[in-house]
């Protein structure tokens, strides 16, 4: 497929990179020739210098043959305009616009009135706030993804120093009495992701990804010795768009929110927008301030400023002072793994989250839901098993899936099956598959519909 990416910033480059790796032809449009030169040096894409909203530039980029146009510059107006122009030139092209304005619904309504359809509005700030909320709801987790309309969770846990799981094999733990139904689908260790065999021993510092039926999560948390409730007291460092969106959501859910922001005028704005949250003017890396405001009693400390190094530093400081779980917004490539390695419990990346949402949209129809993990090294996808697919009607041990892929859960009606070798997938089942990146496309092919699918 031919895809056009308008905007060669971090998000544009990441999404272009992924699309190329999945075998697509990508053209990147940007107004900055230096940026384009750097992209051309590192990525196998075509680059075009010019305004992404210009019909001439879009024509040169091949809008006629493009199945997808992604407008992801830093400007809402440019992105919307690029989609409007693309819609006029080529109605059949799917159009995605990144829009910062939280009130993007008003764009949708106005544009529909004049007959323009933008297929997806992506708001990275909203996407990252949703992700943080999902993780906050699960005690001790460093990442949480949801499948099968909330019936299945994929939860990441770090194995801390002194934890009884360290040093034991998965098979050994699987025999333990009272073990809730769960399956370890991946282990992240020293910057790499492995698909574990039963003989794999967990090590201190590992992050284990577990599939668990949502209504049995409590049993799992108790079993892991994480008998603490979900977060109630939350600190947010940085009152930018994400900070504000998140604070508003959390106070609506009845949490106690303290928000730290250095800029006085921004603080005034935050106080106006928020009703119950406490707005503190100050620096997040201020030891005394954090101590005075009792960060030791916080269930979570979430650092969301534009300064990523500061986010890491200030969250580590909060952890040192006793905050139970610390989150840092990190977007630079490599930072997610680094932050995890030095003690940030939950690294969140606006860029990676946005890339995941866009890719999910691009593949919709083929897959029902998807979650990216760990700097995109692997993916969990949810599909509906078709009668004509190769995975149905035989025991799993006889289903040949590509290397690096495994079935994490099967959902039939309201029932969640945590699979074993003798489990059988039936047509119509929803199946959650885990695959390392090299195997993702083969997995999709293995479960894809056959020719006669109308």
């Amino acid at each position: 497929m031919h895809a056009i990416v308008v905007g060669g910033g971090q998000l544009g480059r990441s999404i272009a990179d992924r699309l190329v790796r999945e075998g697509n032809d990508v053209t990147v449009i940007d107004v900055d020739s230096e940026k384009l030169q750097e992209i051309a040096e590192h990525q196998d894409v075509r680059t075009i210098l010019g305004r992404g909203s210009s019909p001439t530039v879009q024509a040169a980029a091949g809008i006629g043959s493009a199945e997808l146009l992604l407008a992801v510059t830093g400007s809402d107006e440019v992105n919307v305009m690029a989609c409007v122009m693309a819609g006029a030139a080529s109605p059949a092209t799917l159009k995605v616009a990144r829009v910062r304005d939280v009130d993007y619904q008003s764009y949708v309504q106005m544009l529909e009135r004049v007959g323009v359809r933008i297929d997806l509005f992506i708001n990275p700030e909203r996407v990252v706030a949703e992700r943080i909320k999902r993780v906050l709801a699960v005690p001790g987790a460093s990442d949480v993804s949801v499948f099968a309309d909330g019936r299945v969770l994929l939860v990441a846990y770090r194995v801390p120093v002194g934890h009884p799981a360290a040093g034991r094999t998965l098979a050994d733990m699987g025999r333990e009495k009272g073990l809730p139904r769960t399956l370890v689908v991946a282990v992240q260790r020293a910057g790499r992701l492995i698909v574990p065999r039963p003989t794999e021993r967990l090590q201190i510092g590992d992050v284990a990804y577990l599939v668990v039926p949502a209504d049995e999560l409590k049993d799992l948390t108790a079993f892991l010795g994480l008998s603490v409730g979900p977060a109630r007291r939350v600190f947010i460092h940085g009152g930018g768009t994400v900070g504000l969106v998140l604070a508003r959501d959390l106070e609506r859910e009845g949490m106690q929110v303290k928000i730290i922001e250095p800029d006085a005028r921004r603080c005034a704005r935050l106080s106006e927008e928020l009703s119950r949250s406490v707005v503190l003017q100050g620096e997040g890396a201020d030891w005394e301030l954090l101590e005075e405001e009792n960060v030791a009693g916080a269930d979570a400390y979430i650092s969301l400023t534009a300064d990523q190094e500061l986010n890491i530093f200030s969250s580590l400081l909060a952890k040192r002072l006793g905050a139970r779980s610390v989150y840092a917004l990190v977007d630079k490539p490599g930072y997610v793994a680094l932050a995890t390695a030095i003690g940030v419990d939950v690294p969140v990346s606006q860029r990676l989250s946005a890339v995941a949402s866009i890719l999910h949209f691009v593949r919709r129809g083929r897959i029902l839901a998807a979650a990216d993990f760990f700097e995109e090294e692997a993916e969990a996808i949810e599909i509906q098993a078709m009668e004509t697919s190769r995975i149905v009607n035989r025991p799993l041990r006889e289903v040949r899936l590509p290397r690096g892929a495994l079935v994490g859960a099967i959902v039939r009606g309201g029932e969640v099956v945590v699979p074993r070798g003798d489990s059988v997938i039936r047509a119509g089942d929803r199946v959650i598959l885990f695959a390392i990146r090299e195997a993702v496309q083969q997995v999709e092919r293995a479960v894809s519909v056959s020719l006669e699918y109308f």
Partner: protein
Amino acid sequence: MAIRDLLNEDVIVSDMTARDKKSAIIELCHRLSERRPDLDQGRMVSVLLNRERLGSTGIGQGIAIPHGKLPEIDSLVTGFGRSREGVDFASMDDSPAHIFFVLFAPAGAARTHLDALARISQILQDEKVRQMLMEAEGPGDILKVIDDAEKRLEVS
């Protein structure tokens, strides 16, 4: 049901100009909508493109059978296209597609569309038929190749 009864010269594009999947689908749907002004070209295009996203209907050996459901029709609507240069259709064998059968089925149709699909693939399995389709002069010739192939199928 015979494929020849579903086709006529008007819906055959014997020299397609498109070189990529999306343009090829637009070209084929454009021809169909000229013949059937009651059908919306944009809708036909998006139905076919959405189906392609679930997996290419390029079945290899230069053949593609883009298909989908169209609730507003009450019987099968078909089209045919031939590209001498070939179209990149993301086919299963990675080779370009040259012969296109477009197939739209009504929403509730029982198995007639599956029969049509089976029949089309049956005709195109014969390498000689594919070759003759590529060498045919124009729409009239193409129809005749399909007609003859179908007759042979019925005899055997």
